[in-house]
């Protein structure tokens, strides 16, 4: 729902790093996106062209690296992919797992020329 604001934040980060590195053009932006964030990547891509118009990032490809929601069982330490947000450990049945990934949302790297 707030993909526009989020896209502006991404553009801010990308343009700052592009400037710091004297980029003439940004070719690609690698974004880590956790499943649990609820951010819809194609909406971000949709706003991206609008937000970066007339900047060095105009036309840059957005590459989303999806991070699955993983949990670790507090009892048997099994790591498992959460299906339907069920934290029940598939190995021992304990329901006391901690979510260890899936909340990521970061600009990992950019490719510039």
């Amino acid at each position: 729902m707030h993909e526009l604001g989020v896209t502006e934040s991404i553009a801010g980060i990308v343009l700052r790093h592009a400037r710091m590195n004297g980029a003439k053009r940004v070719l690609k932006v690698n974004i880590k996106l956790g499943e649990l964030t609820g951010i819809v990547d194609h909406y971000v891509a949709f706003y991206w062209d609008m937000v970066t118009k007339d900047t060095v990032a105009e036309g840059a490809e957005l590459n989303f690296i999806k991070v699955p929601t993983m949990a670790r069982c507090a009892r048997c330490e099994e790591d498992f992919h959460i299906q339907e947000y069920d934290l029940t450990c598939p190995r021992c049945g304990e329901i006391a797992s901690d979510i260890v990934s899936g909340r990521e949302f970061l600009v990992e790297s950019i490719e510039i020329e």
Partner: protein
Amino acid sequence: MDIEVLEGVFDANEKIARENEELFRSRGVLAVNLMASPGAGKTSLVIRTLELLRGKLRIGVIEGDIASSVDAEKVKSQGVPVVQINTGGVCHLDAAMIRQALDHLDLAALDLVIIENVGNLVCPAEFKLGEGLRAMILSVPEGHDKPLKYPLMFSDSQVLVVNKTDLLGMGDFDMDELRSTVLRMNPRVAIFEVSCRTGEGLQDWADWLEERARENLKGVDEGST
């Protein structure tokens, strides 16, 4: 040329949220981020909570709305300090808005600040405000299937208040199903069943919240000695 960035998209918000958190902590104030969809009963729960904790805790309220001060006026009639934030179309509160609101609240004179977030089951969950407690409401007419459709808020809240229990039996809301779904997602969440209309169940919620605020105060006292 590849450039490593490793910068979180929410980093700017989270930095301010940490500053807010420190501000609340240093004044011994428990900040509660109260989230729910529109019409779930956020303002009603705030008002009922103020009534039940009157004379027990010093409470301030931050009202977040996209527009209007309808809710703030209602809360103000309870005789507590209220700050209204109008987000001007933004679908959630963020840490910077709270920072600005805090200029208008005397934290030294408060034990508990209830922040009523914008009515929305999605976006508020992604923006930390610097709260010590994340609370959410689900109301019976919304249905027991909401946790699976809006998982982040249900996964991240420390307490879930199920409101409008006076309407149980009028639809197909299944409380057992709701509890088991939520507890599979968030095993440590505290769940209260209440009706802000009849008052049923509210005392347990208020007692629990008072206890959390007192623990928070105790933490500050111990930290300062």
